[in-house]
């Protein structure tokens, strides 16, 4: 075991982690630990754009953007945070431009902007051009630009280091962060990083679903590490299902495809969205479109022998338009389905896309130990965190924004905290939990296999807590997850070595997914209403009287070692917008 000492440690090198690193490296001695090479992070998959009311192409302002964000989130958004997001969006985009990001340009040479679902002029009057973009690879350009600037600033990376434990120490009844424990993929060595402040920027958790737009590596490691140490997770029942994933594969086809005029059709060739959203049709909000697709499928109008998909039809659009506006996603259709989008419709189904919930923070990125108390020295930003700017449903283009605004804020706040505070003493045997976990898996002779359990988990999640949920399906999931967690104790791996042991890490990642799936299902069971991405067929309406509040889930361990989840609730911060019915 090695021990390192840094002022500030950042966990993750996606957009949020690198944006934080650029700030904190200037102000404090910083190390970035990342399980992937920075440029492999899933921020690079983002296609459509990043929202900011620059008003470069038409009238716009940050107040309209704030309103759209709150309404899009079905009023579960903390309004003070949404206001910061929308206000700071403008500098966030300009900063990226100055760092070198090659945005699309207007004829006058300004940053160009385009339309995206849910972003409107004057509180819903008409769509507004607010998304700044770079082709259909905006996320790729953000990730590259941030990495380039990390190289410029001399940011210190520990690549292929997996953070597996968060060290939390109690001093006079106050929980404090002492550092993290990481596993080095190349050598199998365990490293303790003592740090005055730690920032989690480890991304989402989509891999507990089978059909997902998320990378294999998005396994919620950061959420799980904090949760296991008694810190809460907020609003985990809210997950976004994007309407257009490639059938069975889940690879995303951007909303921009429908923005360009693409149409969804059932097996009879009908444009079914006309039934469900007469005005916005195919461009209604993501949760509405996903539910409509599944309604078609359930009522027998899905396509294929299994009737398990519908079509995204782009065949009426001129090939030149597809080449110019949607080059990457049309190439996905050719590569993975062998079909030509000029002439053939693309089979799609909703795909698990984005975690609205996560580690609760305030607007400085400080992690909360309960509804009000911060954990000194602990920060989170990006998809791992829940500020909450996305509430019950995130608007397209608001996440690339979130990672930049709150990545920057937490980078500054953490470095300033490091400058003013001392190290917290490490607990005795700081690496104990990780060492035990690794040893147990290496030595296990159990009969359960990681891949089989993971597949059972994913199939259970897809079937029971995806677009439609009921008391019964969620209970089925809760029971199944409990069974899988028990069987997980009997998991064994084949690779017993130290060198690049991805077999071992997949087993550890599965443990994280199981913990988080349990929190998600338990939180969903208790929320007896429908709001944004959480749709309960048995409670189809939003219930502001009883559920206008954030869920806070805590792991409790009884004296005899049995674990359970305790649910608590946190009020929503409302400043100027009173809840209204959400119509598009």
């Amino acid at each position, binding site marked *: 075991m090695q021990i390192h000492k840094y002022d500030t440690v950042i966990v993750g090198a996606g957009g949020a982690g690198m944006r934080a690193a650029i700030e904190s490296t200037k102000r404090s001695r910083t190390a970035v630990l990342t399980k*992937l*090479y920075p*440029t*492999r992070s899933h921020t*690079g*998959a983002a296609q459509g754009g990043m929202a900011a009311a620059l008003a470069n192409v038409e009238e716009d302002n940050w107040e309209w953007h704030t309103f759209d964000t709150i309404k899009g989130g079905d009023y579960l958004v903390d309004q003070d945070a949404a206001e910061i997001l929308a206000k700071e969006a403008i500098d966030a*985009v300009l900063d990226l431009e*100055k760092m*070198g990001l*090659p945005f699309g*340009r207007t004829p*006058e*040479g*300004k940053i160009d902007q385009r339309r995206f679902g849910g972003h409107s002029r004057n509180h819903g009057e008409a769509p507004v051009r607010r998304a700044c973009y*770079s*082709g259909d*690879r905006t996320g*790729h*350009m953000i990730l590259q630009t941030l990495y*380039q*600037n990390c*190289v*410029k600033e001399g940011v210190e990376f520990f690549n292929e280091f997996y953070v597996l434990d968060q060290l939390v120490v109690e001093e006079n009844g106050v929980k404090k962060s002492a550092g993290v424990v990481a596993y080095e993929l190349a050598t199998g060595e365990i490293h303790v990083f003592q740090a005055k402040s730690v920032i989690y920027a480890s991304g989402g958790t989509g891999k507990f679903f089978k059909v997902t737009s998320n*990378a*294999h590596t998005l396994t919620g490691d950061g959420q799980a590490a904090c949760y296991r140490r008694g810190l809460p997770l907020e609003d985990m029942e809210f997950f976004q299902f994007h309407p257009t994933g490639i059938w069975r594969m889940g*690879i995303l086809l951007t909303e921009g495809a429908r923005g360009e005029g693409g*149409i969804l*059709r059932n*097996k009879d*060739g*009908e*444009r*079914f969205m*006309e*039934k*469900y959203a007469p005005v916005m049709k195919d461009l209604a909000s993501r949760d509405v479109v996903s539910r409509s697709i599944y309604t078609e499928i359930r009522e027998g109008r*899905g396509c*294929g*022998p*299994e009737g398990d*998909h519908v079509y995204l*039809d782009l*065949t009426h659009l001129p090939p030149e338009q597809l080449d110019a506006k949607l080059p990457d996603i049309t190439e*996905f259709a050719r*590569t*993975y*389905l*062998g079909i030509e989008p000029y002439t*053939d*419709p693309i089979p799609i189904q909703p795909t698990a896309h984005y975690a609205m919930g996560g580690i609760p923070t305030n607007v400085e990125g400080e992690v909360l130990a309960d509804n009000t108390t911060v954990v000194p020295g602990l920060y989170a930003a990006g998809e791992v965190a829940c500020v909450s700017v996305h509430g019950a449903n995130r608007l397209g283009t608001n996440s690339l924004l979130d990672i930049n605004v709150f990545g920057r804020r937490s980078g500054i706040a953490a470095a300033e905290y490091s400058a003013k505070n001392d190290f917290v003493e490490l607990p005795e045997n700081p690496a104990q939990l990780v060492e035990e976990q690794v040893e147990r898996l290496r030595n296990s002779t159990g009969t359960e296999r*990681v*891949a089989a359990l993971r597949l059972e988990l994913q199939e259970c999640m897809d079937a029971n807590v995806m677009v439609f949920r009921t008391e019964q399906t969620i209970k089925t999931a809760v029971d199944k997850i409990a069974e899988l967690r028990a069987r997980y104790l009997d998991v064994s791996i084949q*690779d017993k*070595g*130290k*060198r*690049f*042991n*991805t*077999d071992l890490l997949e087993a550890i990642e599965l443990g994280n997914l199981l913990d988080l799936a349990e929190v998600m299902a338990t939180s969903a069971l208790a929320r007896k209403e429908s709001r944004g991405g959480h749709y309960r067929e048995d409670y189809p309406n939003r219930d502001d009287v009883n559920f206008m509040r954030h869920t806070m889930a805590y792991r409790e361990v009884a004296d005899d070692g049995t674990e359970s989840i305790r649910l608590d609730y946190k009020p929503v911060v409302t400043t100027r917008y009173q809840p209204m019915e959400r119509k598009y």
Partner: protein
Amino acid sequence: MATPTLEKSDKAPEAGFADTPYITATFRIRRFNPEVSDEVEWQDFEISIDPKERVLDALHKIKWEMDGTLTFRRSCAHGICGSDAMRINGKNRLACKTLIKDINPEKPITVEAIKGLTVLKDLVVDMDPFFQAYRDVMPFLVTKGNEPTRERLQSPEDRERFDDTTKCILCAACTSSCPVFWNDGQYFGPAAIVNAHRFIFDSRDEAGEQRLEILNDRDGVWRCRTTFNCTDACPRGIEVTKAIQEVKRALITRRF
């Protein structure tokens, strides 16, 4: 809810999409794990799989169902993160962007690590020299003077000038297909030059001269022998050789 007059199209193929029958394919994989042995070994795995699946799916099937020690990098699974460049049937490709049916599964499919970088285990190579060459070309925007309050202006034409080389995902498929790089690991390699190109031809940048000097070095662009392997290998369709030629021309004319 249903309206009788839904807009209709007859383009939707009735049959829809379905599974294709599975085939049996043999994957012949170059194994190496110095923790166990210094010897390299080719190992055959016979699997039953839908030929429309990716080589990455096949590798997962092998790892998950047959041999957990098989080691490779991957993340996004759809060609945008650059993790899984490898030599498949002797050509550099991304495993996640190569469908089994497209590489003749009748014969054993060979899979090995990319060449020119040290193999650490199975399909995993040491990427550090590759990223070092990238860092050496100053891969970041350099500007002088005060920053403007708003964005720097750039015309759509100036923006288009370097669009192709902004697509790079740093997968190393190009560099590790280059015979010059195989023979001499000191050569910067195509990927680093592509990323220098991205800034040299960006109208906002003011360090083109410096980057050109770096590439004028004996290990720089002049080593390129225009074999086009890199262009063939690039999974992003970047015209790599053309970018290198443009840098060479800029070195001669000092115009960019």
